[in-house]
């Protein structure tokens, strides 16, 4: 054991030296590149100047960053949203549970068809159906129940009453403040941080009260539908802009007095869709990782992490 450790250390030292050499080379490159960047005395680029001066008259919003994110560079944000969607899809794919492939796929359907061909008028259907329902229920509880894994300390539903009290005060306040962050796009904020706040509220409830409280809200099947609905709203906004104004992410909503909820035209609905997208994406990713189980049982036939 120690010999192996030493050889590893030897190897590690080589690796460190190689890393130092590479990092030193990179440092020289970066030093040359970084000292050549524009400094703080340079004038603002034309694009930035244009974004600053057109935010108030053309978009009716007092927040140029939101104008750039959802307005002038809306198409980029659109693409970035779908990058997020792709990341969420890959995490869900990586963390999915093993499908039950014990039998032949579609066995049940075929059996039912065959049975109905042989016996078109089943009489003992009721009992059998109840039994099957009970079995399914049991199966579901089995797979969804508390983690009966080894080496895991006993799971309590939540933390203590003090923490729960503080969470009761804080969770609604955080939720309202998150909505404010999205709704008043005239102040810094918008869909991205508000989506993060949505994750924060759910995590606060999860940490203080336990999984059962948020199980309904964070089930992948439901949240995915909401996420795709958010993506659909973004596409809809863009397509309506294309049809009505002739370009994607053109403003087709009436402008109102800046500073209010409806100021900024399409910025607000776009921001709301981003909120849904980012919030559900982060929630899906986090809770998918949280629900991830062991399911490659093949390489440890009698290992304790084996499922079923």
């Amino acid at each position, binding site marked *: 054991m120690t010999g192996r450790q030493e050889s590893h250390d030897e190897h590690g030292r080589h690796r460190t030296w190689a890393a130092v050499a590479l990092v030193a080379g990179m440092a020289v490159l970066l030093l040359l590149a970084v000292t050549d960047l524009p400094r703080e005395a340079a004038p603002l680029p034309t694009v930035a100047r244009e974004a600053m001066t057109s935010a108030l008259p053309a978009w009716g919003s007092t927040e140029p960053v939101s104008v750039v994110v959802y307005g002038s560079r809306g198409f980029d944000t659109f693409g970035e949203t779908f990058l997020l969607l792709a990341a969420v899809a890959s995490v869900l794919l990586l963390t999915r549970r093993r499908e039950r492939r014990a039998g032949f796929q579609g066995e049940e359907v075929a059996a039912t068809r065959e049975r109905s061909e042989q016996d078109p008028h089943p009489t003992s259907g009721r009992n059998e159906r109840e039994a099957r329902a009970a079995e399914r229920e049991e199966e579901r509880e089995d797979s969804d129940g508390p983690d009966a894994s080894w080496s895991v300390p006993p799971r309590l539903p939540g*933390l203590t009453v003090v923490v729960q009290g503080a969470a009761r005060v804080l969770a609604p306040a955080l939720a309202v*403040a998150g909505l404010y962050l999205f709704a008043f796009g005239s*102040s810094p904020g918008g869909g991205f941080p508000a989506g993060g706040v949505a994750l924060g509220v759910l995590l*606060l409830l999860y*940490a203080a009260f336990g999984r059962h409280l948020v199980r309904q809200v964070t089930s992948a099947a439901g949240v995915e539908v909401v996420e795709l609905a958010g993506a659909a709203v973004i596409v809809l906004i863009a397509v309506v802009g294309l049809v009505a104004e002739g370009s994607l992410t053109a403003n087709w909503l009436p402008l109102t007095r800046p500073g209010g909820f409806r100021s900024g035209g399409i910025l607000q609905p776009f921001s709301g869709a981003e909120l849904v997208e980012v919030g559900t994406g982060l929630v899906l990713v986090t809770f998918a990782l949280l629900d991830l189980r062991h399911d490659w049982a093949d390489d440890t036939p009698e290992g304790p992490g084996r499922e079923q």
Partner: protein
Amino acid sequence: MTGLMGTAALLELLVVGVLVVRLAAGPTVSDRIVALNAISTQITLSLVCLAIWADRSLYLDVGLWLGSFSYLGTLLWARFLERGLL
């Protein structure tokens, strides 16, 4: 007045320097969590002072978020510490 608040922001940041030593040295995870929580509080305070120094009340909102999220972070850490997984 404004110089006062800027100096206060700087001094609060210097307090963070003391806490980073505990973050580096803390023999157990709990020590580090204590240091991390205190660091978040100090940065929040520093942001409050900075907002007044820079004369933008918008910056106060960031301090508000940082303060509330530091609680959430500590809670998650405590949960992790208590049961070995989140």
